[in-house]
């Protein structure tokens, strides 16, 4: 059965026309997106997660539109199918830290609450720097090789600091987070934030939050990042142990791993300059963000000492 015909029946829609086959279509109630799911457990997690985040924060998410029977998805030959709103208008970043703080703070709070319940989602694999370093081959430009060799020592020091910071703390839970990358996933509906969550498998880690904050910092700068952290802190206690745990995540040199993987994957050999440039940029953003974050975390402590 054609999927559009099935959607017509399940959702009581009538005027449907594909914009992009099996992805987006026009309907009498606006443009909608179809998502196919192979893993039912993951789908159920996404339904519950989106409902909870949206209800708690009041921020609109690309939640599953209910069928006429009130179900969040239906089954077809290709697997489970969910239907979502497709919004095009992007949400601005300027002076919207309050909205973003509410969303990200709620995501972190709910993620932490879920930490005990969702055992199937694993921690992100720990970075094996030695193995990454071993991947450097002689075939690249000697200058690039020199940079990577030197950066290895700094990367090792960052890993050591991250572990040291983590080991000094009492063991605390990590939140369950789904991908927060791509700020372009933020759309707007009547001047309100509408966040497109995607369909990724979540992880038990602060890594998605780090990726998000790095992108935010790069796009919006230091002042806005501090404002955002303050807003997040209204919904999730980021100052304190969780802030330190997040700081230890930000110290890990993932960009080092990525640059080596990219350089030695066969199709990237010719883009060496671009890859190295990207590496320098990410390294610098990561360094600045760690500095900003540690200052932000110590801010209250310094104030208390000054008094």
């Amino acid at each position, binding site marked *: 059965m054609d999927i559009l015909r099935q959607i017509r029946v399940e959702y009581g829609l009538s005027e449907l026309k594909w914009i992009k086959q099996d992805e987006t279509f026009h309907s009498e109630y606006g443009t909608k997106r179809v998502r196919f799911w192979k893993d039912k457990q993951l789908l159920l997690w996404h339904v519950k997660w989106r409902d909870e985040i949206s209800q708690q924060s009041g921020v609109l998410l690309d939640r599953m539109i*209910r069928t006429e029977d009130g179900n969040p998805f239906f089954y077809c030959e290709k697997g489970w199918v969910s239907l979502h709103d497709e919004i095009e208008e992007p949400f601005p970043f300027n002076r919207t830290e309050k909205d973003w703080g509410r969303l990200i703070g709620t995501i972190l709070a709910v993620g932490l609450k879920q930490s005990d319940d969702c055992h199937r989602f694993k921690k992100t694999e720990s970075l094996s720097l030695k193995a990454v370093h071993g991947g450097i081959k002689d075939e690249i430009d000697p200058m690039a090789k020199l940079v990577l060799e030197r950066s290895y020592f700094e990367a090792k020091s960052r890993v050591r600091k991250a572990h040291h910071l983590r080991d000094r703390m009492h063991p605390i839970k990590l939140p369950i987070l789904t991908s927060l990358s791509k700020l372009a996933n933020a759309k707007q509906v009547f*001047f309100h934030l509408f966040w497109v969550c995607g369909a990724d498998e979540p992880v038990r880690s602060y890594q998605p939050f780090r990726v998000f904050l790095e992108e935010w910092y790069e796009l919006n700068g230091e002042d806005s990042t501090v404002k955002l952290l303050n807003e997040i802190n209204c919904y999730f206690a980021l100052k304190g142990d969780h802030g330190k745990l997040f700081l230890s995540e930000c110290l890990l040199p993932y960009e080092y791993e990525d640059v080596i993987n990219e350089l030695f994957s066969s199709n990237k050999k010719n883009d060496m300059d671009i890859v190295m440039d990207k590496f320098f940029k990410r390294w610098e953003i990561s360094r600045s963000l760690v500095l900003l974050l540690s200052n932000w975390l110590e801010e209250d402590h310094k104030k208390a000492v000054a008094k």
Partner: protein
Amino acid sequence: MIYNKAPQNSSLGYILFQYDLYPEKIEQFGKVKKVVSRKGTFALKESTMTNEQANWFSHVMRRLEKLNYNKIIPIIPTKYGDLTISHQNKTYYLQPWFSEEAELREDKKELTLFKQLGKLHGLTVKPQEFSKETIENSYQDLIKRWEKRRLEMEYFAEEAERKAYISPFELTYLTHFSRMDMMANVAVNYLKEWRDQCLEKESYRACLCHGKLDRNHIFYHPNGYGYLLNFEKAVLDTPARDLAISFRRSFQYNLWSEDQGSDWLATYEDSLLLEDEEKKLLASYLIYPEIIFHCIDHYRKRDGSITELQFVQVLEKRIITMSRVDHFIHNTLLRKPSDESK
């Protein structure tokens, strides 16, 4: 192509988006917006429910649906399945718009109301796990509250007596004060009897209570049925309390008669027979002269919008109502079958 004619009001747009409603016309009626769209005509209600209250409200509506109780105005879920939307400290929900209400005879309105109240209570009533502490606490709380109110009223009477020129309203109140005071004592006695009976039986019942059911919260459909609405104050409580609230609210529409009360109770009891102790509790709620005290509160806060004469008229009407309540309690509510044979 749908052209969204919603005003450039971001809050309203945010809410209607979640219903996929593209309004062609919006009219305001107090806290309700009438939204005319291609999908149909709807009532969007704005309320002050907190998130917690809204969750309870949604739970109540879903529970009633599960119980197949269909004499309520349904709540239309958002496209994401939520029954309410919280936005900027307000809660919103959507219902179908009904405009043509049936023209019922005055006496029929309350009969329909008490019939539905009985059904609602009958469907949801459950014996509760007995707790002496719960009974004792409820009793003590109510006694304290009533005593505080009684003292306030006594103070008002004393103040009036000290005046050189007593107003007509104060004079009317003073004339009946000792009777009202006596009624307050009778209420306390009935309440004590309720407590003693509960403790002796070691049981009590609770049901889903609407919380403020009167003519304003029921839609009289031309098909002859009454459909309840506005469950924002719904709670789990004794049926006697909800019944007392509806009795009191219904007194206000016309000069209530004892016979009407008998009919209301009989209609209610077609669905749920009250236990002896529940009747005592209902009697205590009804005979406590709160409606008189409430009138005094209004008089003390008067701002000139109601004349002295109007205040006197309201008070007189309420005093008559209380006398009839007194008769109703003795002749109907607490009358035992053995009394009838005498």
